[in-house]
């Protein structure tokens, strides 16, 4: 009730009846609200408990320890029908995270490209980008998912007529994209170690280059040394060791290819749908961010003799990022939440698995609570991380 920011506190309070006192009324009002919410909550909980009791519906999370009994189409976690519900749900969480992480990564790249394309001085490029954005963001995501799924499952050939993207190694069919597995070799471990070492060396080189530039004003090359440090030693070791690379080829046997890894049609459709849809929103954020940088910055960069791509990278993007990051967070969150639409096209994400669990156990409340808890955790982590990043790149005002 009170607005203390008004701060018109008079030194001497005028005498009023206590029920007209602002502070007293604020307290009373809050007590009323809390009581009201508690009463409503109690009413609902009481009804629910009574109903559960009278309808003889089991409650509690003890079902998590029971055998799930259903299979999951694809899972990074080893899982079989003999495992518990808890493990099935865990597999679902991992699947959701996989889709979200890959989706966020691809959508960011695609969105940034499209956003920059919309601002291109090339009329044709800008037009194509804006048609892309308008079409995708003005139709429901679910419709797009159905469309992609139908396209993937109806337009692709059967396994026997699979498209050989790389003959003998990569196949695309109604049953998904099949890729070979790499057989692990000792050398690979060494290569990875060298790659990490190269990463450290790169950081060192970049820092030294920056210092050198500040001291002398001269640029040192960055791109090729980076590539060299990262991949050079690893590649050399690999070549000296006789280039050991053993691939398990997918082989058509029985109903499907055996061996190698798969991206299922459900996953492909879901990823394509989520990435293209979200990229339009990211593109708009990127565009708005770039437009928010004043024209003078471009002109100043040009006056310094920087070419277009360098002024974009060194001058404009760092400033635009401050505008881009906050709305980007909510797009990342949206993508993660939208991945729950997987249930419509059969990708076994968290919601899809809990949906099955709810059906099998009849315990809807627990199921919905688990869905909400899992997404809240993910959402809060993403927004926490993005807030931290946002603070890091925020303008430090002098």
């Amino acid at each position, binding site marked *: *009730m009170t607005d203390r920011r008004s701060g018109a506190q008079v030194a001497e309070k005028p005498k009023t009846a206590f*029920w*007209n006192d602002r502070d007293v*009324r604020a307290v*009373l*009002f809050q007590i*009323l609200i809390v009581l*009201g919410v508690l009463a*409503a909550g109690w009413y609902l909980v009481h009804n629910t408990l009574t*109903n559960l009791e*009278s*309808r*003889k*519906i*089991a409650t509690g999370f003890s079902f998590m320890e029971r055998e799930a*009994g*259903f*299979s*999951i*189409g*694809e899972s990074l976690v080893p899982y*079989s*029908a*003999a495992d518990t519900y808890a493990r099935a749900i865990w597999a679902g969480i991992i699947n959701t995270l996989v889709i979200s992480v890959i989706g966020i990564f691809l959508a960011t790249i695609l969105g940034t490209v499209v956003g920059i394309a919309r601002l291109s001085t090339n009329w044709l490029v800008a037009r194509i980008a804006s048609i892309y954005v308008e079409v995708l963001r003005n139709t429901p995501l679910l419709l797009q998912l*159905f469309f992609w799924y*139908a396209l993937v*499952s*109806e337009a692709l050939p*059967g396994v026997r007529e699979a498209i050989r993207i790389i003959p003998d190694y990569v196949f695309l069919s*109604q*049953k998904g994209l099949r890729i070979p597995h790499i057989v692990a070799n000792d050398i690979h471990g060494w290569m990875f170690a060298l790659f990490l070492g190269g990463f450290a060396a790169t950081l060192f080189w970049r820092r030294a280059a920056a210092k050198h530039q500040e001291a002398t004003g001269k640029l040192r090359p960055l791109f090729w040394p980076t590539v060299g440090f990262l991949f050079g030693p690893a590649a050399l070791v690999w070549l000296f060791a006789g280039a050991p690379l053993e691939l398990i080829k997918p082989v058509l*046997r*029985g*109903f*499907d290819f*055996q061996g190698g890894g798969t991206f299922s*049609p*459900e996953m492909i459709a879901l990823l394509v749908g989520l990435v293209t849809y979200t990229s339009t929103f990211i593109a708009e954020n990127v565009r708005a961010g770039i437009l928010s940088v004043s024209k003078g910055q471009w002109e100043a960069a040009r006056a310094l003799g920087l070419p277009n791509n360098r002024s974009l990278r060194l001058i404009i993007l760092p400033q635009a990022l401050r505008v881009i990051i906050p709305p980007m967070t909510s797009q990342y969150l949206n993508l993660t939440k939208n991945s729950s639409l997987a*249930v*419509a*096209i*059969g990708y*076994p994400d968290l919601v*899809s698995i809990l*949906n*099955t669990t*709810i*059906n*099998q156990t*009849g315990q*809807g409340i627990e199921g919905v609570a688990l869905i909400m808890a899992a997404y809240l955790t993910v959402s809060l982590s993403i927004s926490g991380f993005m807030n931290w990043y946002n603070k890091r790149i925020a303008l430090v005002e002098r």
Partner: protein
Amino acid sequence: MSKMTFTFVNVLAAGAVALLAAGAAQAQGAGTLAAVKQRGAVNCGVNTSLPGFSSPDAQGNWTGMDVDTCKAIAASVLGDAKKVKYFPLNAQQRFAALQSGEIDLLARNTTWTQTRDTSLGLNFAPVTFFDGQGFMVSKKLGVKSAKELNGATVCVQPGTTTELNLADYFRANKMDFKPVVIQELSEVEAAFFAGRCDAYTTDSSGLASTRAARAANADDYVILPELISKEPLAPAVRQGDDEWYNIVFWTVTALVEAEELGITSKNADDMKKSDNPAVKRFLGVTPGMGKNLNLAEDWAYNAVKAVGNYGEVFERNVGKATPLKLDRGVNALWTKGGLQYAMPVR
């Protein structure tokens, strides 16, 4: 100022009340029977679309075996088979709808299992259709037996006993499979016919229904001989209302009893003149049976008159003359080697 406070609270309260009142249809009093009579209609939960069991045409008229169960109950309780309100439900919603009292009766090709009978708080009436889960595959694959399905991709709907039986069967036979689990029936069927899956599994009646109604060319698909489970499909009601349960139980029984007694929708009127005491009791010529159920004495007559006896219901919806072309098989009367056996109406 204090006025303001109360206005605000009032607004909140009024809003809450309005929200509740708007859709909360205050209905049932004590028992389901009283509620049905007061409403003048039976609220019946059915499948969204499963030709042969329950499916609506473009005008919204429902037909099918489960629909006939609803109609028979409306006829025996209200004397009019048209007094049914249909609630199309998907697998996930069906039990919640029954538990919450939204529907009086669930006639949605639901398998009678111990878990559902106990932990979901349901009571099942006699089985209207003895079914078993099977597989359908494309003829092109050349598969002759479910045992040959090792490594296959199988389309299945979630939230059903089907999904569990499928996993059990492959585990028991030490075979592998990949499930494609899609909730929407139309979507899962589309995925199968598109070739996304090698096999589609559900109750064999459902397979026949799907093949008849949805395949571009029904002859391209074959239903494998193995039945991997028992699926007794039965109507269900809530526990704790014995009066209503009795009505549903005995109305379903009455249709089978009518077939045993040779009463059909066509000859029901003539049969009233029969000397057979069992027929007289059944049709209410000798009073008593209706009173036991708190119904009118012509309850069974109305039910049979409206939908026919069990044999008629079967033949009309799923029998040889329909696209499903199902045999009576285990659903024949016990006197003919089947399992349909009516508890005596006496």
